[in-house]
């Protein structure tokens, strides 16, 4: 393992926050009071808050040590399928931290915040252009929030036509959050099976689509990394029965500049700015999940929308058919600024090239590994490819063992056990920001692991060995949940 990235190095131990510090320390500068102390009604007063008292150095060391137990895109390749872990440009962070923008208050008059309104307006326009759709709401704070917004729009649109539908079609190759998002709007999810090629069949959709079905939620490219070639026929079937088509755009990084969502027959599409548009995922969030819609559905978008009149920008809430508000203010604005900064940096040519290279990287990995890993759907993929552990089963090695062994080689594992239709799935999405050298190294690591599975399977079952902690007991964590530290500790 000496030639490859590998792990090792200096990892310091660090206790929990409340095992550090001394009563009376402080880690923040609090201004001296310039006003008299005021009386407070004793029965309003709470007890002292049980936080540890730490100095600034205590806090800095604590979180610096914690950070060193973490792996991010800046540390190395993070081929987590469907998550588009591309490089997060540093300049985007600077732009979002621009003092007048970071300090902008969301409740002031439009005339006091023209700059931030202009960013919102221009980003709305840019995302409409990029998707081919007509209007955009930037309010949704994440992909699943965008899905919910899309389902609220479906609901409001049907209601505006005097109907209330109760079902929604969701293919087995759609994203995992879709059924829960639809259920929040009272829709019952009806599963649609993909065929043996991993594709949706319009006839199968036609057999399920009826006048109590609000529409379909599909992911394209789907979660097998394949483009749904018959999407237009599927959309026609759904539209003919009075339904709408929701496109989950989480995989948009594959097809920037290639597809026109409107020509595909999509009525509502959400984008994940924390995937395709390079904003950092923050170890869980924040994301942003704008929804893009056709002209017909524009009146149903959340309020407020940003409009431009002459040279001024204004928030418009006078939209009687709107689904209402889905965020307290304007969504995750700081994330939107980062995406805006990315689009301006990349331009049209850069964005289109990004998709081409993302697809190139994924196909290259697929071709270089399919002799050692089982490829259930052997056809040209988009931005990700899905393998399984079928070939390793005879050595009693499963996907999780290969994934954990990748950690010892210095890579974040791919998405595992998703999509559910592939048993022991391993979903690899390299993204366009990984260069050929690094991809070759990753391929070499996985090929070595496949060999180790035969020759030294115990190495995989015991992996990872070089991390701060080894495999963790998740069963114990769920059986006797310890979700907060003990008080008075």
């Amino acid at each position, binding site marked *: 393992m000496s030639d490859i990235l590998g792990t090792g190095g200096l990892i310091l131990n660090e206790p929990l926050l409340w095992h550090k510090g001394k009563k009376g320390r402080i880690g923040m500068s609090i201004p001296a009071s310039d006003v008299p102390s005021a009386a407070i009604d004793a029965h*309003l007063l709470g007890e002292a808050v049980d936080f540890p008292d730490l100095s600034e150095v205590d806090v800095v060391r604590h979180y610096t040590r914690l950070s060193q137990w973490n792996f991010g895109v800046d540390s190395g390749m993070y081929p987590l399928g469907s998550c588009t872990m591309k490089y997060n440009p540093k300049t985007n962070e600077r732009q979002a931290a621009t*003092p007048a923008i970071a300090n902008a208050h969301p409740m002031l008059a439009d005339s006091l915040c023209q700059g931030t309104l202009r960013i919102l307006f221009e980003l709305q326009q840019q995302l409409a252009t990029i998707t081919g759709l007509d209007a955009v709401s930037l309010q949704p704070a994440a992909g699943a929030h965008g899905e919910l917004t899309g389902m609220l729009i479906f609901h409001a649109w049907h209601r505006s036509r005097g109907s209330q539908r109760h079902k929604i079609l969701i293919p087995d190759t759609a994203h995992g959050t879709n059924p829960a998002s639809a259920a929040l709007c009272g829709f019952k999810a009806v599963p649609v099976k993909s065929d043996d090629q991993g594709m949706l069949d319009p006839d199968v959709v036609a057999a399920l689509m009826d006048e109590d079905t609000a529409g379909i939620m599909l992911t394209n490219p789907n979660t097998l990394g394949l483009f749904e070639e018959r999407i237009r026929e599927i959309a026609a079937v759904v539209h003919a029965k009075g339904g709408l088509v929701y496109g989950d755009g989480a995989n948009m990084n594959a097809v920037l500049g290639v597809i026109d969502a409107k020509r595909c027959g999509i009525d509502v599409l959400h984008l994940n700015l924390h995937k395709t548009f390079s904003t950092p995922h923050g170890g869980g969030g924040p994301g942003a999940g704008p929804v893009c819609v056709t002209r017909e559905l524009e009146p149903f978008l959340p309020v407020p929308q940003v409009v431009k009149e002459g040279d001024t920008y204004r928030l418009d809430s006078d939209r009687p058919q709107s689904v209402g508000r889905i965020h307290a203010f304007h969504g995750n604005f700081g994330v939107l600024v980062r995406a805006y900064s990315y689009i301006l940096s990349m331009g049209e040519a850069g964005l289109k090239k990004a998709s081409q290279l993302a697809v190139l990287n994924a196909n290259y990995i697929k071709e270089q590994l399919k002799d050692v890993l089982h490829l259930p759907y052997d056809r040209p993929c988009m931005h990700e490819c899905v393998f399984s552990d079928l070939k390793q089963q005879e050595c009693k090695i499963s996907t999780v063992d290969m994934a954990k062994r990748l950690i010892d080689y210095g890579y974040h594992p791919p998405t595992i056990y998703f999509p559910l239709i592939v048993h022991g799935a391993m979903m690899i999405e390299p993204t366009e920001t990984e260069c050929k050298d690094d991809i070759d190294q990753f391929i070499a690591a996985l090929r070595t692991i496949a060999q180790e599975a035969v020759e030294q399977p115990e190495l995989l079952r015991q992996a990872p060995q070089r991390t701060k902690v080894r495999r963790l007991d998740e069963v114990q964590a769920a059986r006797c949940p*310890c979700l907060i530290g003990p008080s008075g500790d």
Partner: protein
Amino acid sequence: MRYLPHTPEEIAAMLAAIGKSSLDNLFDPVPADCRMTGAWDLPAAKSEWELNDHLRHLAATMRVDEHTKVLVGAGSYRHHIPETVRSLASRSEFLTAYTPYQPEMAQGTLQGIFEYQTLTARLLGVDVVNASMYDGASALAEALLMGLRIAKKKKRVAVAKAIHPHYRAVVRAYLQPAGYEVVELDFLASGRTDLSGLANLDDIAAVAVQSPNFFGVIEDLEAAAATIHGAGMLFVTCFTEPLAYGLLKNPGSCGADIVCGEGQSFGIAPSFGGPGLGMFGCKEPFTRNLPGRLVGETKDLEGRRGYVLTLATREQHIRREKATSNICSNQGICAMTAGMYMASLGGTGIRQLARLNYDKTQYCKETLRNAGATMVFDGPVFNEFVVEFPTDFKPAYERLLAKNIVAGLELGALYPELAGRHLFCVTETIDKQTMDTIAAEVGA
């Protein structure tokens, strides 16, 4: 483009390896009639330096900027943010990681969130806190949906009209399509919520009250808990200013079942309203009804302490349409940031800072009162209050704006019955001189 590393030679070699003749050929599976045609109407790509200039130009068009004294809260608060918090939260090991699905590679995020959950639970007086929701508004909507799940058959919830109007709008958007009804409860002359009619309402699963409420007024949560529980309903509280609990009794100790709100005050820049932090916690019996992610402590193969995402059987990727919520991505780095901020303040510091906000607010009230203004509500407040001026305030507001001071928020658009009244907010970022200047203009 500096983010795209492939050389033409590498592209050619990779295409050859997969048997394609050009990059365009990679998209053969996409039918012609699905294709984007024509060029995009996007500006030409900007260099890093041109982008800096562009954003600097946009910043210059902001009438209110970082130098303006803003006496508006209403759900978004300007507090000092220590450089340590900004610097630690932007460490890319935290910032550029995904959700910690592979715990061996994400112990930093996981321990950090576990500590956030713990400190937040101690602050709010609850037994369990999740890893975050999108914002205070969606957290409240999810809290009410959780209340409806716990109460099973009931179809209605009641929310105080003194809850942030935008939060109530989000609650309506979330609840109404599924057929739930939202009843609003009026406020009294004190600015506190009138709960006297609760007993006459039937089919109510949960009642939500904000404290300090939108008018800054501190609700009597203990009395509210007694009334609400007495009527057989769940008690949900929300907040927009968690710093208040550095001084005031926390909602859990007052009897709240579910506590949620916005945590932006804890080290997160206002940033035009987001990203913020949906804080969400509850009493232990309801743990398995919680929406969102949870981090739990466990041990590794060698018995070492470690952390994992846990109780995932509640969540969308396992439970599909029966999940407690559809939330997946949350506000991870914002929760980490809030943890860093709470750690920086400590128990001693949070009391001191909360006290400072309280004292300054009392001073501002007094000076305005001396200048002839009256307080619209007589209930106790933390760092916001509603005021009525003896004459039209507009000219004074404009004069103050010219002095780079935003003097409050006029309430007519949010509460027509309070048109002409202003909601003021005073944090530690507002000095005495600014407050004196405002009072002088009111009296002028």
